[in-house]
């Protein structure tokens, strides 16, 4: 990995990085500023424009080291679904034997 390769350029591949920083970070000073979007979560504007998944971002973003991001509700659901299907098959097999 060369230093040169990691330098960012203002191009499309870094658009998410740029949006995150420009919309979400930077100093905010109160006073006689005409307009400042301090209270607006600008990064979420970008997300909302694409898909309404702000809740997921919030959910994943809080304390990732404590948060079980992988075992999200959907992953749990699919595990339960697999387990359910396996149990069904097993019941069918047992019923077939009893008959």
């Amino acid at each position: 990995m060369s230093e040169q390769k990691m330098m960012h350029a203002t191009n499309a591949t870094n658009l998410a990085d740029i949006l995150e920083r420009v919309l979400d970070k930077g100093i905010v000073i109160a006073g006689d500023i005409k307009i400042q979007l301090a209270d607006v979560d600008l990064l979420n504007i970008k997300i909302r424009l694409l898909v309404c998944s702000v809740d997921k971002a919030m959910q994943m973003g809080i304390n990732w080291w404590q948060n079980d991001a992988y075992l999200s509700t959907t992953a749990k659901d699919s595990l339960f679904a697999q387990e359910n299907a396996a149990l069904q098959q097993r019941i069918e097999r047992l019923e077939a034997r009893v008959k």
Partner: protein
Amino acid sequence: MARRIEPGQLLYLYCVADRAPDLNKGRDGSDRPRIIPHEGLYAVARRVSRSDFDEDNLKRNLSDLAWVETRVIAHEQVLEAVMKDSCMVPFKFATLFDSEDNLKGMLARNAPLLKEALENVAGHEEWGLKIYCDMDALEASLRQNKELSELDHEIASSSPGKAFILKRRQEARLRQMMRTKLNECGQESFDRLRGLCSRARINRLLPKEATEKNEDMILNAAFLIRKPKVRAFIETVAWLKARQAESGLSFDCTGPWPPYNFCDVVERTADHARP
């Protein structure tokens, strides 16, 4: 060039620098950024149209992704040009003033705070690290683990009932190993890099819709690094990356950035590294 802004215009503040940057390279026209000096501070601002940035118009324009992207990229380009010559404090997108006097008033009132913010980032660069995980690849690499493959053999030679229980145990163990791996990777990477930096912060994870990647983001961190230590930082990232090869983890390291993440003078006490 007119020093007053016209009735149909607002003054958009990009950043405040510690010395006057040279912004004339490769630019012309009246819309190029201007430097407004005030008692050792140099505000970099541009006149913008009220039809773009007045409060009502801005709200409308913010729902237009193409409009937002164009302005956001222009904002970043101005900051990058300033960064070449000066140390600076970036302002949040769309910080607008009615007049040059108002802007100078803000500079005067906040001069100690701005100077402190400038001192904090002087001689530093901001770098970012995002770690992504291809969950399928990670799962595949962990399935080759000895413990799990031994369970495979046991499952194959067990009765259906026992095999079912063992299969469940194997799946649960796999999920647990995946969680452990992700947490260790995120934690280790952050801790090692933090040791090289003056300040570090963890930002919230962004969903795939924002990153437009197929992988899940598992770490989003920013680092403020003394310039002589940047090389060591980059080498450490490369070392971490090499260690995680073939486990579905990818490292996206970018920089140098304007110090967006490290100019929160007021909220400095709220700066969170890790609980």
